[in-house]
Each structure stands twice: as C-alpha cells, then as structure tokens.
C-alpha cells in the first residue's frame, strides 16, 4: 500500500514527467478560426500604433540646408580642395533659412555629413579609450595608429577620430538679434562622466605637420569638450547627423534665420556633403517615418490576409 502510494507520488514529480517526455505542454492547433483571429488582432493592433507613430513623426519640423558647395566662392569652385586647404582665405559664409512652420523650443541644431565613413575599420579602431579616461598616465597608444605621437611625445587625445574633429562653426541671427545657442549637454552623460577624464587635458594635439580637423582648447578637460565627445561616438552609417547645440527660443512661421558659419571642414576631397539641420522633436524622437510605415504596412497585410482567409474559409467550408 505504502509502496503504491510512493510510486504514485514518484509519478507526479516533474523529473519523472521529464524522463517520460510527458511534461505538460500547450500545443496550439492552428484552426482557421484561430489564424483569422490572430491576423485580425495583429491588424487591429498594428494600424493604430503605426498611425500614432506617423503622426508623431509628422509633427516634427525639420529644415535642412546643404551649404558645402554654396559656401565656396564662385571663382574657387573649380578647385574646392585647394580653397579649403588654403588657410589664408577667410572661410566665413552666410546662409538664410526660412522657417515654414512654427517650431517649438528646444530646436536641435545638427550638422549632417554624407559619404563620410566614420565606420571605416581603420578609423573606428584608431582611438584609445583608456587614454581618454586616464590621459598621459596611460602609455600604450598603439591602438591610435597612425596618429599616436608627434615629436616623440604622445598626443592626447590620440587617434584618427579625434584628429579629424569636425570644426565648422555656426551662429544664428534672427531679425538682427543673435539667437542664443546652448552648446552644453549635447553629449551623453555617461560619456562625460565615465568615458572622458575630468583631469585629462589636450596635449600636443594638432601639432604635427598634417593637420586634420579642429583644435581643442588645452585649458578645458576632455570631459567638458562636448563637441569632441559627440564626434568620438562614431556613426554606423556613412551618412549621419551630429548634435551641435540647441536653440532655446521658439521660431515662428516665416522667420528668417541667418546662419553665419565658418566653412572649415574638408569634405571636398572625397565628395562628401555637409548640411545644417534645424529640427524639433516629438515624444518619439526626430523625424522618422519608417517605423510608422512599417507598422501600418504590417497591420494592413494582416488585415488583408485575415479577409482572404475568411473568404477562403467561407468558400471551402468543410
């Protein structure tokens, strides 16, 4: 009697069921009803979500201005590369951007580079995270090749990425008055706090014969060099935007914003484009229609399939 009960109890343990491959399991049988219901449900869920997303994306106002060609004076347009490399020519340039729709603060200022391979292997690898955090205390800069030292002294920050820092600058004027641009807090907090050292100062930077991009103020620690921090977060695609700053005033319809810029950065040798972007944001971020389109597409296809299955089911009912 006891052994019977014991055996019975043994049969109920999970391990016994496992050994007999008879653990309880749900085995959905895809009957037409279920299939139609699932597709209907997907359609009902996805279409509204897609529409909401699309709406959010459409609320975002974006002004894009490509300035790399127009900022080169007419006579130099035949040989843009020598123009940009000639330091004696002043590089300032003015652009007019017309606001076509009310833009609510904060308005984000981006520069956009096209055909710029920040994801090139040689480029991506050429940095030393340890040096960025510890400065000259960290000696091994072999990762930073080919920009690891100059005159036998290490460069801080070393590597191709830092060396090629973007150095166009922008000023915004509306109706004669300068718009205040907030250039703080444009980099990730984690980067500022944990990746770039608070006591690390630029050293021996852009001192070589070959000068790449912008220079850094050696008085400011790396953790406060936010332009550098933004630039050092390399982009995965050859066409990318990077945050420059924020305008913290609303812009009205038909406002004309004059942009005084310094066109310093060389994208001419490889045919890259430079664009300036002003954009507001929604709860979903910037202007991105893909997600909304995708959701609507999936929802519509599910609905269509559901309808087709209903028709088939009605026609060929068993």
């Amino acid at each position, binding site marked *: 009697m006891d052994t019977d009960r014991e055996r019975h109890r043994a049969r109920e343990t999970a391990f016994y069921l496992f050994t007999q491959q008879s653990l309880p399991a749900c085995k959905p049988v895809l009957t037409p009803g279920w299939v139609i219901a699932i597709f209907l449900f997907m359609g009902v869920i996805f279409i509204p979500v897609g529409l909401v997303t699309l709406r959010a994306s459409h609320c975002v106002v974006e002004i894009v201005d490509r300035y790399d060609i127009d900022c080169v004076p007419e006579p130099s347009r035949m040989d843009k590369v020598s123009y940009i490399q000639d330091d004696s020519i002043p590089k300032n340039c003015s652009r007019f951007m017309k606001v076509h729709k009310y833009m609510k603060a904060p308005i984000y200022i981006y520069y956009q580079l096209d055909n710029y391979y920040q*994801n090139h*292997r*040689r480029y991506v690898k050429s940095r030393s995270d340890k040096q960025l955090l510890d400065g000259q205390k960290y000696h091994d800069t072999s990762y930073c090749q080919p920009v690891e030292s100059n005159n036998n002294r290490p460069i801080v920050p070393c590597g191709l990425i830092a*060396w090629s820092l973007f150095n166009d600058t922008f000023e915004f004027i509306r109706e004669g008055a300068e718009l205040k641009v907030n250039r703080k807090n444009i980099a990730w907090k984690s980067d500022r706090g944990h990746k770039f050292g608070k006591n690390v100062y630029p050293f021996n930077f852009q001192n070589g014969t070959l000068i790449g991009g912008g220079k850094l103020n050696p008085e400011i620690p790396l953790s406060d060099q936010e332009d550098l921090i933004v630039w050092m977060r390399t982009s995965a695609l*050859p066409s990318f935007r990077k945050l420059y700053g924020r305008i913290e005033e609303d812009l009205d319809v038909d406002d004309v914003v004059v942009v005084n810029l310094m066109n310093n950065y060389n994208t001419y*040798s490889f045919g890259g484009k430079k664009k300036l972007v002003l954009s507001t944001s929604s709860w979903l971020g910037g202007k991105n229609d893909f997600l909304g389109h995708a959701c609507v597409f999936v929802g519509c296809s599910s609905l269509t399939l559901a309808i087709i299955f209903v028709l088939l089911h009605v026609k060929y009912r068993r």
Partner: protein
Amino acid sequence: MKRYVYINDNESSHELYCDNRISNRKYTVLNFLPKNLWEQFSRFMNQYFLLIACLQLWSLITPVNPASTWGPLIFIFAVSASKEAWDDYNRYLSDKKANEKLVWVVRQGIRKHIQAQDIHVGNIVWLRENDEVPCDLVLIGTSDPQGLCYVETAALDGETDLKTRVIPSACMGIDFELLHKIKGVIECPNPDKDITRFDANLRLFPPFIDNDVCPLTIKNTILQSCYLRNTEWACGVAVYTGNETKLGMSRGIPEPKLTAMDAMIDKLTGAIFVFQIVVVMVLGIAGNVWKDTEARKQWYVQYPIEGPWYELLVIPLRFELLCSIMIPISIKVSLDLVKSLYAKFIDWDTEMIDYETGIPSHATNTAISEDLGQVEYIMTDKTGTLTENRMIFRRCCISGVFYGNESGDALKDTKLLNAVAGSSPDVVQFLTVMAICNTVVPIKSKTGAISYKAQSQDEDALVNAAAQLHMVYANKTANILEIRFNGSVIKYEVLEILEFTSDRKRMSVVVKDCQNGKIVLLSKGADEAILPYAYVGQQTRTFIEAVEQYAQLGLRTLCLACRELREDEYQEWSLLFKEASSTLVDREWRIAEVCQRLEHDFEVLGVTAIEDRLQDGVPETIETLRKAGINFWMLTGDKQNTAIQIALSCNFISPEPKGQLLLIDGKTEDEVCRSLERVLLTMRITSSEPKDVAFVVDGWALEIALKHYRKAFTELAILSRTAICCRVTPSQKAQLVELLKSCDYRTLAIGDGGNDVRMIQQADIGVGISGREGLQAARAADYSIGKFRFLKRLILVHGRYSYNRTAFLSQYSFYKSLVICFIQIFFSFISGVSGTSLFNSVSLMAYNVFYTSVPVLVSVLDKDLSEGTVMQHPQILFYCQAGRFTVSLPFLAFFPLLYNRASESEYICWMVWSIFVPCNCCVCDHHTCLCLREK
C-alpha cells in the same frame, strides 16, 4: 619468425615476451593531452576553427576580440577531452579488474594463487569449471580421462554451443601430480589474430615420454576470454599473454557509426566553407579596389601610400574572420548534448521496461538515435527475437499415432497418459530417447527436486516433457545414467556420445542397458537426417505427414529413432571412433564419417513437435512498422517450413491469394541462377500490383547467389519488401546487411543471440534483445531492449522525435549563423568594404552562446505530434525516411537557401538600420526620446 616457449621455465622467457597485463586504454596520463588534441584536430571542423582562432591573434586583421573564438573553442575541446578521459578511465578500471583477477599458476613447482597480470609465457595455468581463460593456453591436462574439455567461445566468435578441446597426444596419460613438473618446449608462430589456426609443435623433455615432436592445432588450445564448461579442471601452458593473445590482436576499436544526419551536416559544412571562400574572395577584391579608388581620397583614414607586402591580403583575411561565424562552432556541442539526452530518454522510458525480467531498455550508443527515425530495412532474427525462445513440448507422433492434436498439448492428452500408464513398449522406448538422448545434466537440489542444465532449449523441453510423462532422468554419475519410470529405476551406461553438428543435423548416444546388457543407439535429429536412414521396410509415410503437419503449425520437429547394436558391431565401430577422435587432420569430418557408419537402419520411433511461442505483440509491431514503410527481412538459422510458418503467424507475409511466396533454391550454380532469374522476373511483373510478394532463400542458394549472381540478387533485394532467409550462418547475415547498406538503405538489425552479433555490428543500427540466449547481442548492440514489441516505440517515438529534433537543431544552428553573418556582410558594403564588425565581441559571443545556442536546447522536449497519434498513424514516418532526400534538398538547392537567408538578413539589416541605427545615431545625436530622457 617463431617463438619458443619453455614450459615451466621461470627465468628465460620473462624478458622476451610481455606479461599478461591487458590494456585496452587509448591513452596514458602522459600522452593524453597531445594524443587527444591530435585526434581532435584530425577533424576538419576543428582544424578550421583553430586556424580562425590563430588568425584572430593578429590584431591588424581581427574584427573582434580573439576571446570570442578561443573561449568556445577551448570549451568544446575541454568537453570532448573530458568525455574521452572518462571513457578511458572506465576502460582502465575494467582492465584493472581483469588484470587483478586471481588465478592458479605453478611457480617453482608449487601451485600459487596469483594475479592474472603476473602470468608469464611458459607458466602453467590451472582453471576450474566456469573460469574465464586469462590468456592463450596450450592444454596439457584435464579432468577428463580422455583429455577432453569443453569451452564456450562466445566472446571470441559469438557461437554459443560448447566446443571440445583435447590435450596433445604427447601429454596423454600424464599423472595429475606430474603436470607440475612437466618440462618441454613449444615452438609456435608469433602472435596473430587468426582464431582458427595454431600451427605449432610440442616437445617434452625427458623423463616425459620421448622427445618426438608432437604437432599442435587450434584444437589443443583454449583461448583468452573463453569459459571452461562441463569440465572439472584443466591446465595449460601460457603461450600468448596480455595484448598479444589472439583476442588481443583481433581487438580493434569498432568504427564509430555515423548517422545520415551527421554525414549531411558534414556536407553542408563543406558547402558553406566553399561559399565562404567565394564570399571572402569577392569581398576581398572589392575591398582592395575600394581602398585604392576611394579610401585614398579620404584624408581622415590616412592610408599610407606604400603599404607592407602583405597589404593585399589583409582585407580578405579580415573578411575570412568576419565570415568565420558562418560555420556554427556550437553545433557539435549542442548535438552531442541533445543526443545524449535522447539516449537517456530511451533508458528512462518506463513503457519500454520488460516487467517480466525488470530489464529496462538501454541505449549503448548515444550518437545515433536520429537514425532510428530513418530506418528502411529491418533484418530480424527469428528464434528468441520474434519468438520467446521458450520451448514447450506440444505434440508428438509415436508409431503412427498422433497425440495432442485435439487439445494442442500432448502432455494433457489422456490417450498418451493412458499409454504411459500401460507401459506401451513403443511409448516407453520413445520416452527413453526423449530422456537420455542428449547432453543434459540433471542437478538435484537439496529438497530433492531435479532441475536440468541444458545447452539447447530443445533438449531442455524434451527432457522436461519426458519427466512430466513419468520418465524422469534422475541422475548422472560418471557414465551411468539413472532413469525413473513408473517407480522403477533403470540404469544405462553411456558408451559414446555422437555430438550434434550443423552438418549432420542429428545427435546420437550409444548406451548399454545395465539390466540386460543390450547396446542401443539412440538418435534424434532433423527429419531429413533421420527418415532417409530408416531400415528398409519401415513405413515412414506417417512420419513425413506428421512432420509436414507440425511444420504447418509452426512447430519445431525432431525425429527420434533407435537401433539395437550387436556387441561385436559396436566394438568394431568403437575402435574406429576412437581413432577418428584422436586424428589431428580433419577430425570433425572424420568423426562425421565414422558416425555415418553407425547411424543407419534406424527404427524410427516418432516425431516430437516443440512450440516456440511468438512474443507478445509481435504481429502488431510488424504490421505497424510495415505501415510505416519499413521493410522486413527475416534471417534465421531455422528450417524453411518453420520459418515460413512463423512468418505467416506474425504478419510477416500474407497468406495466398493476397501474398505470394517465391522460392529460390537449387544445389548447383545453374539451378540457383535459373530460379533467381525466374523470381526476379515475377517480382518485376508484380511490383506494380498491390500484392505482397516475398522471396524465400536458403543458406546454400544464398551462398551461391551472393558469390556469383550478386548483381541480380541486389536487384531482387531492392524490389522485394519482404524476404525470408533460412539456414543462414552468422557471416551470411552480416553479408546481407552489407548488401542492403551498399544500396544506400538505412538498415536495422535485431537479434538476441551470439550468432546475430556480426549482423548487429554490421548494420547502421544494431538492436539486441536481452533474452534467454545471453546478453552477447545486447552487449554488441547500439540499443538493447527486453522484447521485440518495444521496437515499435523505439522507432516510432524515440527515433522519430530524435530525428525531428536533431533536424531542427542543426538547421537552426546553420540558420542563425548565416543570418548574423549576412548582416555583417551587408554592413561591410556600407562601411567602405573595410571589414568593420557591426557587433562587438561580447555581443557576438553572447549571440552565439546565450541567445541562440542555449535556449534552442529546449527543443529536445519538442514534440510535433503526440505519441498516440504517431503510433496510430505510422505512415507519418515516411517524412523522416524521406528526410534523406528532403534534408539533402536544401543542400542541392543550397544557393536558393542562401538567397533566402540573404534576403532575410537584408530585411533584418534594414529593420535594424531603419530603427536602431538612426536611433543609435540619434542617441549620439540626441534625436530621440532616449536622449530627451537623458537630459
């Protein structure tokens, strides 16, 4: 080259030859690491991964941290190495047990109990009954006055019948005490693995006999791993020891069986490797071209004008490393893991426990479960596999009177019981033959009950039946047999035993009735070995009818006969027999010839019919499995009629008119050829009809067919779904399996006895039934089960699930590797074909191990259909069998498959870029909610 073994010489041969230490180990502690690594690296996949791992150490080209390959690689190697080490340790333990077994050996003239490993060549070893022989010995003495002893050679050649061994003539008659002091020399060849030959000479030194050379044959030896049976003691001189014995020399590690799926995976791996090389070359060229045309313009990349000499190689090698994940490194480990679980499921299955004996099913080979789901041919033994191998005496026919026809059990037939009670002379004579014409040994327990120790199940059945009919075989002391019949004791003296051989198909004893001194020859045997030798004038028609009738019922028949011998006739013959028994050349044949001189002019007494009942559920199992599209072949040593009857009764073949049996027979090449062609013709015609056509072939015709008409026979084998092969030898069984395997069919062999071992080892899957004929088949097999009916569950449930799961798992492994690899490839097109990895090392490793490898292991519990459904609709197995083709289909259509993968990863890639990459950039650019929240 020869070796000279000096008997009882304790010094000279110690250094020359190894001691008796047996070693089956592959490794020693020192050579384990190098040898095991070498073995593992002989596999292509491992070499490949090692190459990749080494390339990754070059930081210029590695896209990810080398740890992402080294980690899994070391893990995989550690797993396989520890498995090997564990197996080897177990082998070491079993060797140790054998080596430390105590045996009696003569040392300095005194018998001592020493460990088996300390036996040296030339030592004299003493064995008792049922001892295992520790090394190869030349017999010099036995307890038998004629110098005979019996050994069971099952471990050596798989034959369960006892073999007689005899001491060399030179040692004949040496006194028991003197054996310790015997001196001499044995000249024998160097060790080889031929267990049928031993061409040696023995010369004893004075004072023993003379110094004539005495020839030795295999008959004078007992080989390692045999068992001494029915002989009180025997002693012999060790000639080969340790790993140099005949068994040791023939011991090879059986080749590991490879499943169809494994072969498929290897092929797929090869194909992917080729594809990978192509991708690498294309991308490498594209990368170099892009570098020279575009990248040099990009000042921020700072390509040097002049690179080092290997510059052209750098980009292709980078892509090689990027693409290396195309071949899933985890597949071997995952598959090994799930396969051992499948095996465990078989071990654990309570529905496959034989409750009669309490033996659970067991998977010895853990690697081939999924092949069970792809079986196409089952080769089955008959006796003990389909039947219970429990012989029961059912009917008999004594002098033309049939007993047991009405009730089906002669032991309850009142007619017979009355005849026994009335001591009808025919019946008494018949029962006497049943009781004493055998090699059975009666054993009396303390309570007085008599049990019988018989080598053959048939003899056991006959003796027991005789005992139930009051003819009790009570005792055997030396040569005197005691029989109790109706209260009186009759004594017989056994003069000779003419043993059973499969050529003679009968056995006889010559006994002397102790009461009246009459000498009688008692014989029993197959009908064709007895009835033709009846004395002229005896009517054997009723016996022939009886045999036919019993065979129709699927009963095993034996004819019993006797003949009274004259004193002088016996004496004359006895001399001949002794002479024949001591010949050295062709002894078996000579003995058979001499026996023939005595075994004629029989007075046929009657026919016995013994039933060997079918096991439970055999017909159902066969029917279900045939519905599943599995073809059955029955290979049996039994005779044609019985085999056909059993086949009919277990749904193996259908009776006329639905079924048709085609016979291939003939004694000569021409006859066999003609009948083979006729059968082939019929088979071709009927192959389109819905008719069960089966062919029947006997051993003799099979031998000829396999030798001379192999092509025709192969065609027949392919055409025929069912075949019955009777009177086949163990090696023929193996040949038939080989034949079907060569036609690229998946074969399963199932059997229970030593004679099935070779076929079990030969087949893709060997299943052993742990039955009454011992455990040899079960030990040699990949799977052992208790009853034939479990085969259904083994194939339909375990085999099918294993196949589906393994198929899913391996396909998934390739799929996930290809997907992530294609994302990398697409990314390389937008990263300047420079070989940047989209994912960092940690993510890649995590993807390979934690995200994709570990969770899918849950698929070992996956069941697409419930067990009941599969059992009810066995046809579903077709998909698995055809799996050979559908799995290879994506292989043929490999590029379309890759194309699908490509478009899929393109899609995933697109999704990732469209959502995450902008998001990611947006994160950098502070364009999304993420960044908003961060402020």
